[in-house]
């Protein structure tokens, strides 16, 4: 920590600009609304073609699964959770960064979030949709999912309130609802702007309905802003609780490697970590494709890289605590599991995971790397790989060696497993692409609010009081 910093002088007495080049308010509207008002480029259709193909692969794999049953997957006893739950945890985690950026950074008044919040929130919603799919198809007969809700039936028996799987249903559906509302509430003023911009009659009608007749009245803004804070305040503990409850799926059991008290915060940190990886991946592409470099600035990517580094350290802390406590506990089975993860059948996965999640992000300590988009992009992809593997390792290694050696069974994924995984990525990116073309991907309102001269320099009301 020495010579590198002295090359440049940072002036701490001035706030760094949030929007580069000081554009006019109209120009902000124009460039944010441009993707939905112009004909998409060939590149866009090519991208959509790729994602739709991936989605189709997923649909075919799902068709196979439903027609022939869950036997098409690699799942076995004892590894009954396999890919489906791995993907579920992975996608839920991706969603968490969105809420973190939109709600937590909002509460911390990190105004740089404005440029990326909308996109991250949309990603949350799409990711939760992908995530919700997996427990559903893991049922094998998804139409029986109704039984997880506390509805009175002729059996007279109610759902098991002690089951973390039931908690999951409540948590994920609450999370989806609240994220959707948060996103929508943020969209309303922008939809109104789109309504007033568009000349197409059908589009205008749709925007009219969606914006509900918003009219930028300050008497409305007052309540609106308050509700936004409240929703952020609710979403912040919610995001902690959702992944904590996902971690309870594992941690309330007494399996070695699963039953450990650090799981709730560890999963939350991991979720934010993977989510930031995904947001970085997508944003780096989006700012390039839609020419939004002056709104999503290098400064944003730098800050996101720093947050990624921070959560990577938290994940690393959990990686350290787990084996230490497994040893400290004196429980031979716990300790055996730790050694088996490092050296057993899935050792390669474990070491790739550790490399991607702990060692590679350490590069982000260096400013040069944080400001190199190519390297940043590669790191963000590696984080995605690493975090997916983390869930895979947690699920498979704890399960495949059951307590009785006669019950041991190696998990080998099938083509159908991979098909569904690819399909979920296809679904996610298809939705992202459609969203990027149809709605303002950046909050015009909020960006306008952080331009220079957006607010009077002194409080007039304060003098009156």
């Amino acid at each position, binding site marked *: *920590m020495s010579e590198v*910093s*002295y090359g440049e*002088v*940072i*002036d*701490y*007495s*001035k*706030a760094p600009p949030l929007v580069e080049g000081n554009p006019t308010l109209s120009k902000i509207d124009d460039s944010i609304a441009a993707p939905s008002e112009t004909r998409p480029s060939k590149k866009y259709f090519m991208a959509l073609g790729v994602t739709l193909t991936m989605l189709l692969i997923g649909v075919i794999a799902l068709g196979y699964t439903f027609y022939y049953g869950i036997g098409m997957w690699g799942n076995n006893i004892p590894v009954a959770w396999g890919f489906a739950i791995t993907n579920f945890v992975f996608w839920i985690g991706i969603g968490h960064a969105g809420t973190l950026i939109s709600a937590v950074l909002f*509460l911390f*008044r990190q105004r740089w979030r404005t440029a990326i919040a909308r996109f991250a929130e949309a990603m949350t919603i799409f990711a939760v949709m992908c995530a919700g799919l997996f427990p559903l198809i893991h049922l094998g007969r998804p139409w029986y999912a109704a039984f997880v809700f506390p509805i009175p039936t002729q059996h007279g028996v109610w759902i098991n309130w*002690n089951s973390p799987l039931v908690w999951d249903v409540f948590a994920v559906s609450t999370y989806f609802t609240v994220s959707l509302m948060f996103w929508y509430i943020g969209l309303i003023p922008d939809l109104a702007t789109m309504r007033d911009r568009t000349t197409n009659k059908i589009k205008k009608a749709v925007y009219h309905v969606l914006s509900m007749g918003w009219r930028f009245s300050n008497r409305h803004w007052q309540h609106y802003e308050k509700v936004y804070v409240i929703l952020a305040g609710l979403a912040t*503990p919610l995001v*902690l*609780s959702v992944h*904590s409850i996902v971690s*309870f799926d594992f*941690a*309330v*059991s*007494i399996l070695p490697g699963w*039953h*450990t*008290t*650090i*799981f*709730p*915060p560890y999963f939350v940190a991991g979720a934010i970590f993977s989510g930031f990886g995904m947001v970085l991946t997508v944003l780096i592409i989006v700012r390039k494709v839609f020419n939004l470099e002056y709104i999503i600035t290098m400064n944003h990517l730098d800050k996101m890289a720093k947050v990624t580094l*921070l959560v990577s*350290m938290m994940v690393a*802390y*959990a990686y350290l*605590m*787990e084996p230490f*406590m497994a*040893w*400290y*506990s*004196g*429980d031979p089975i716990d300790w055996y599991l730790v050694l088996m993860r490092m050296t057993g059948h899935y050792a390669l996965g474990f070491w790739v995971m550790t490399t991607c999640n702990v060692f590679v992000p350490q590069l982000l*300590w260096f400013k040069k790397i944080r400001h190199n988009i190519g390297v940043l992009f590669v790191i963000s992809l590696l984080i995605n790989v690493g975090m997916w593997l983390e869930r895979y390792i947690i699920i498979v290694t704890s399960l495949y060696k059951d307590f009785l050696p006669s019950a041991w069974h190696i998990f080998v994924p099938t083509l159908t497993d991979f098909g569904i995984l690819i399909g979920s990525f296809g679904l996610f990116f298809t939705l992202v692409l459609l969203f990027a073309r149809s709605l303002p991907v950046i909050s015009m309102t909020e960006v306008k609010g952080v331009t220079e001269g957006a607010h009077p*320099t*002194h*409080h007039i009301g304060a003098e009156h009081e």
Partner: protein
Amino acid sequence: MTTQQISTEKLRKLPESYGKLGWTLLIAGVVFTILSFVIDAKHASFGLTMTLVFVATVGVGSLFWVGVEYVSSAVWSTALRRPFEFLAGVIPFLIILALPLLLRMRTIFEWTHKSLLATDPAMVVKAPYLNIPFFLIRTVGVFALWWLFYYLIIRNSRNQDTSRDQQLTTKNVKLSAGFMPVFAVTLTLFSIDWLMSLTPNWFSTIFAVYVFSGSVLAAMAFGTLIIVKLNEKDRFPVKLTPDHYYNLGAFLFAFVVFWAYIQFSQFMLQWYGNLREETLYYIPRMHGSWAVVSIAVALAEFLIPFFLLVTKPAKMSPKRLVFVSVWLLAAHALDIYWMVMPVYDSKTAVFGVSEVAFILLSLGIILTVFAYKAKGNNMVPVGDPKLQRGLEFHI
């Protein structure tokens, strides 16, 4: 924009009452501690352990807040940083506080008894970690590392008052970024050594995070108490606005919730898992008079402050903030009592001279050190380039 004038006469002039109160409490604390050792040395050892944990958590928690301000380039808190720096001033004295305990380790720590190794196979596994030489190395190492970072960060901050060199901020940002992982590891070692190993068979991976949540909450409460008190009495060198109060209140609120989240996660998972080696921590705490203490801890450190701070006007009200800060410090003391004392007496929650000594001595040390540091230093970092921006902060 109007630049706020810094009142130079208040910069180095803490009201005399702080020092007086600090010394009174300190002397009373020392007297009571000696008394408690005369009455019941074992009880007193546990009492002094609580004192060490309280002072250490407030001290290192304050240093953590200082570091967070640098790392996150937070602006609003620049004017409020010094009180936290002064609070962190207790760090060099921790080793003195730990000394009598290190001499009485056989009383406090069950794992120091060789007989345990013969009967408990798990203790044989732990022996490479839980042994007296390694324990001493860790304790000294942890305190030394804290002191090192305290010394480096505070020195830069202080030098900036005169030199106004912006590079010092850059230096401190880097130092603080380096401090964060060190802090995580050292606080983990500290909490395992001084709290978890009191029940040598018990373990919990989240435990250090739990200690962390209590630590930063207590540090924030102590800082808030002093800052709001001074500002309301018009003894703070700059004028703070309700917006600054709001942020202090919001951090208190956030960490109250965080504390509850961590405690609940640990409790629920061990309750649900129902394994002997985990429940042995909670079973004594859920029966007899300890059950009352457990409920009191949950109420004191979560439910009551939660509702006291939930609304926005509450977070901005100086009266409410002072009350909640005092309340939370008491809750933190109760929390430490809840962690430590069931090891001394697992049947009944005792309250005696040792507990009185714990409260007096803890507050005495922190206040005396604070008053001493405040005398020789500026109450706001006058040379910090972020200071004016921080004063203009509004929500």
